[in-house]
């Protein structure tokens, strides 16, 4: 990576990276975000992360799995967010391996929601128009 030389270049890079992310978010790819902060890891989120990384290709699902920070639902760790193409993001709590399996088979493959999804309880400043 070459150093970014000025603000113009940074703005250009931001737009490129953003549209790359957007394509991932709205395209045909499934996007999964797994909360891997200390609290999540302590409740087993790392194993869930590894489970998705190894299971998804085996089951023929094209997905981008990323680690993210704390989503705030400490009472329901491990928590993950799944974004299916053209769908609103859905947050799942208390994800253990059997639940992760259910998420792949029922939600990712068939779009069928499962019990215990977590309603998103916050709005982020990045969702305000001024920020985007």
């Amino acid at each position, binding site marked *: 990576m070459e*150093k970014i030389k000025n603000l113009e270049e940074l703005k250009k890079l931001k737009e490129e990276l953003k549209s790359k992310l957007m394509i991932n978010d709205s395209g045909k790819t499934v996007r999964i975000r797994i909360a891997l902060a200390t609290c999540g890891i302590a409740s087993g989120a790392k194993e869930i992360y590894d489970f998705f990384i190894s299971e998804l290709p085996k089951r023929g699902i094209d997905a981008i799995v990323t680690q993210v920070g704390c989503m705030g639902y400490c009472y329901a760790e491990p928590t993950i967010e799944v974004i299916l193409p053209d769908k609103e993001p859905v947050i799942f709590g208390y994800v253990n391996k059997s639940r992760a399996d259910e998420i792949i088979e029922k939600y990712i493959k068939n779009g069928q929601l499962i019990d215990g999804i977590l309603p998103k309880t916050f709005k982020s400043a990045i969702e305000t128009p001024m920020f985007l």
Partner: protein
Amino acid sequence: MSKYRMSIIVCGGVTCITDNNAIIIQNPKQEINKNGLSEEIQVITSGCFGFCEKGPIVQILPENTIYVNVKPSDAYDIVNEHIIKGKKIERLLYKDPKSKEIVDNSGQNNFFKQQFRIALRNCGYINPENIEEAIAYNAYQALGKVLTEMTPQDVIDLIKRSGLRGRGGAGFPTGLKWEIASKSNSDIKYVVCNADEGDPGAFMDRSILEGDPHSVLEAMAICGYCIGASEGLIYIRAEYPLAIERLKIAIEQANKYGLLGENILGTGFNFKISLRYGAGAFVCGEETALIHSMEGGRGEPTFKPPFPAEKGYKGKPTNVNNVETFANIPAIILNGAEWFASIGTEKSKGTKVFALAGKINNVGLIEVPMGTTLRTVIYEIGGGLKNDRKFKAVQIGGPSGGFLTEKHLNTEIDYDSLINAGSMMGSGGMIVMDETDCMVSMAKFYLDFTVEESCGKCSPCRIGNKRLSEILDKITKGNGTIEDLVLLKNLSNVIKDTSLCMLGGSSPNPVLSTLEHFYDEYLAHVKDKRCPAGQCKDLIHYYIDAEKCVGCTLCARNCPVNAISGERKQPHSIDQSICIKCGTCIEKCKFNAVFVK
């Protein structure tokens, strides 16, 4: 690709479940089956919507209509009117409490959201170990803007106008702090980030650093530009290995991209950031102690003035801000001071992150606009108290803060209202207590923390707090007197008045606020030798209710000291001289026959 045309989502939060939720979920399922729609419509439960006052909540997807106060009998209409005929059921829609008008909430994603994330804006969205995701979400845009379009004084004025105050606890205006440091005359200055988060139960700063480290790095560079510093240091406790790891990765990536280091974005501005590790001493969160610790000295506070802004790290002007304060800065620069100042109360602007813990259903990390009431935080966002127990107190501000009670629940959270109510903002730990928590024991818990963490420099804190702890111990053991209560108060005030730093000066707060709000509970311990919450082991006894006991022998078989006797199928009894009050019998009894008195 979805097999289902529509989904009915029923809130499965603990508060809603107690309100007939089990039937609410069963009834729509039956209605759906009756109409032969089970292939098209699915009914599922969800976690808490955080709007418990209006529960039970039912949400219809995909149009996202939200029904409130739903009763089991409403299932028929939801299925037959809404699902089949597509007509919304007006009586179940939310009505604005003031205008009494129906709010059609369909499609409004943020209808229920009392939380607003500024400091945590990117947490949960970006991969904290990938700078490219951070850049896609606006990281370093504020730094670029500041370096190319604004003078340092412009930025300082903007931060002042925004009304941002320090999030570490004391609430000092951030813009003013930067201005003082910028006016100090020196060739070398430093920017320090205080990541020595030490309040029991608090993890706001850790979560920011683990979820979005670039927001803090960017803000430190902005601060450096404003005050004329080219070096930043993050003082972080070694107990935060993941935060340290992610900060290291973030610093390395930012250096590689030219967003930190020499000649940032071609503007000629240099700024480098490195880490300093703390050993997890509470007092090192105090800025003078923090600086001494960074210099390799003892972590002890020293007298102010001189303030760090004049003479700080290595004797040079130093600006110290907390993690959360820094995390707000880029958002303020990009969105404007007026945007930030439009959120919050008159004197406290923006939002505050709280770590919500204790006897509450939705333990979690929350960020709410200043001015949100404690009731909203505890009963809606927090989902109310565990096991439907009665609220007793909430402790805010850590070992330096105070306890607030039922009568404070409508307090709008901001720096000044919390101080008026007898607590303080602190860094954001919020611990909820229920009727089974003994307030004398809680005061002792916080005090013991301070005794442990006192650096020992000043006698009021080193010796005074030890004495306070001994008196509290005496009271919880049933040996306290009325005179002890007077002594507690007097000694607390002496410690408050004569300590050098804020750790000592605020350490008796938990004692003073429990004395103020729960004096009856102290009296019960002292006069009646009784612990109303049933927590102080020396003051309670376990008994078996002969009416309720069926003689199953479960308690007797599990008692570790064989204090329980009785014939099979006959009421049992506990020998008080043997009982160690471990509570196993209460836990094991299936008939609620064991009680504490």
